[in-house]
């Protein structure tokens, strides 16, 4: 299936293909309502990240007479250690978390796909050198390394954080893209395109990349979740600079400061960010499930 879409002579029909593609997307989405839910959740998070903080003042109001207040209409998830609304924290904190995730994902995918494509395309010495480096990266344990790095660098901004996570995380994508490239090569596309007198950038940009785009897009989504988890986890362990509304900081303070694992008062403070992560994961899982079916004809045959 993918084969026909990248054959040069098929490009005349690309407009129809695109239309068919969107119709296919719609069909796939429609078949399971859960996938729609996934898209809605993702859209909700995107909205929250972009516009959420605009609904709140720069410094969130606090009520020092209601520390760790239980859930109520005014505070659906109660309040934190200094009486700030937990829901407001989760919403305003989403921007940092999601921005980091996005930056990480972009870097992971750009670097990973670039290196993977290059290695798979060039093969030979370049390939083995790049793959050795990739192996090495995969060998150095990520989380411990981040723990150590966090004492050396201060990740003050979301972008900086994402940058580091991205630079640490491209290994898996590079490998996967390389093997995809190799398998496409094996199927003779590159030689065929060469035979047609197409240039290397053209072959990579117009032939290889599009056929891998869905795959890369899925990896990107997965990288977003990976980055969100990594940073929230590091904040949770308390090694990253403080941001009162960061989800990980909330987890940390709930557990280690509020005793959320000991008594119930700080439990809403713990559960709100956990729920946010759970929802985000669910959204991404459902969307990836849909993408999987859209792009993987084997699963689609029905």
């Amino acid at each position, binding site marked *: 299936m993918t084969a026909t879409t990248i054959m040069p002579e098929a490009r005349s029909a690309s407009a129809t293909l695109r239309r068919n593609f969107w119709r296919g997307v719609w069909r796939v989405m429609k078949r399971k309502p859960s996938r729609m839910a996934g898209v809605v959740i993702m859209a909700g998070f995107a909205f929250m990240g972009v516009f959420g903080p605009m609904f709140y003042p720069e410094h969130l109001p606090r009520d020092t007479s209601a520390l760790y207040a239980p859930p109520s209409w005014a505070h659906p998830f109660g309040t934190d250690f200094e009486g700030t609304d937990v829901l407001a924290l989760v919403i305003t904190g989403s921007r940092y978390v999601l921005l980091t995730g996005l930056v990480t994902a972009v870097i992971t995918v750009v670097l990973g796909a670039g290196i993977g494509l290059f290695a798979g395309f060039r093969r030979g010495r370049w390939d083995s050198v790049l793959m050795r480096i990739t192996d090495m990266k995969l060998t*150095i344990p990520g*989380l411990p390394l981040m723990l150590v790095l966090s004492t*050396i660098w201060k990740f003050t901004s979301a972008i900086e954080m994402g940058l580091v996570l991205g630079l640490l995380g491209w290994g898996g994508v590079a490998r996967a893209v390389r093997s995809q490239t190799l398998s496409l090569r094996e199927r003779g596309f590159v030689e065929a395109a060469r035979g047609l007198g197409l240039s290397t950038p053209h072959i990579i940009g117009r032939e290889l990349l599009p056929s891998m785009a869905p795959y890369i897009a899925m990896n990107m989504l997965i990288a977003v979740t990976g980055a969100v988890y990594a940073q*929230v986890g590091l904040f949770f362990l308390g090694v990253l600079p403080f941001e009162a509304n960061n989800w990980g900081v909330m987890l940390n303070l709930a557990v280690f400061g509020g005793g959320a694992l000991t008594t119930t008062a700080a439990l809403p403070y713990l559960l709100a960010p*956990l729920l946010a*992560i759970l929802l985000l994961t669910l959204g991404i*899982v459902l969307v990836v*499930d849909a993408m999987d079916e859209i792009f993987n004809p*084997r699963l689609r045959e029905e």
Partner: protein
Amino acid sequence: MTLIGVPGRSGVIAVARRLAGHLARGLVMILVVTTISFLIIRNIPGDPMAAKYEKLVEQGMSPEAAQQAVNVLYGFMPTGSMWEQYLDYMKGLARFDLGQSLNVPGTGVGTVLMSAAKWTLIPVLAGTLLSFLVGIILGVYAAIKRQSKVGDLLAISGSLLHGLPQYVLALLLAAIFTTLIPILPAGGTADIMFEPGFNAGYIGSLIQHATLPVVTYALSSYGGWILAMKSSVVTVLGDDFILAAELRGMKRSIIFRYIARNAILPLFTILALSLGMLFGGAIFIERIFNYPGLGLMLIDSITGRDYALMGGAFLLITVAIIIANIAADLLYTVIDPRVRSGGEAA
């Protein structure tokens, strides 16, 4: 006629050559990783002595006593230029000497690592194997029923569990089983009142303490197995030889075995690799359940600036991953005849 696939003489030679190549590459990798981690670790800023002192006085120790407790550690701080330290470290490594721990002064890093490793290995191994077994069984089921609601649910729940970070699971389980319904211990390895050894009380206590870490680990890795097995089975189901076997009138049970064996093959590799990763993988679980394994030790070694111990931990993780890679490859050689005879793995 021999119908049993025993690797021939040429097969053995091929395996040996593969192994030699792996070992050589592994050594280079160890060298590079060690150097990188050495450079990073030795450049961690911070004053562990001051931290220790301040902590002790905050805890209520008198300033004099705290000062004394801290003074003794200076002898274990690395001295000399970075290059000298590096050479010393490498020389030590060549003699399998990882140096002395600063956190537990006077104790070899190897000893500290080994005693922590056992508390990571046992639960993580148990968790991995448990999730592997359950995951592959349900994975086959999910693949066969992939057009039905049950299969869908299995796949989605698998992705969700696979997607959720370990600390979310661990926190949820801890909140439930140690806070809301406190039926399981929140930390430790066993009740000290039991004489360690092969007696029911001690082993029972061990199991009780390991339950939450094992279950968390199993839950968080189960999703991966079910997904991997499902997609592997789906791939094999589409293979020609399955249709061929069907068209030759093979019994369902035999075809099922064909599918299972072919589908599980790539998973064994993942299993071997994930066993290699386990040395570095349980930080959150151990932190949340206060289980004294390598993860907790690593955190301690970082906050205590125990350079030697940190280096040792990184080395252990690296070596484990490299060994796991080699093991995975050799395993493949044993179970996949295509590789065994020196060909390329599919």
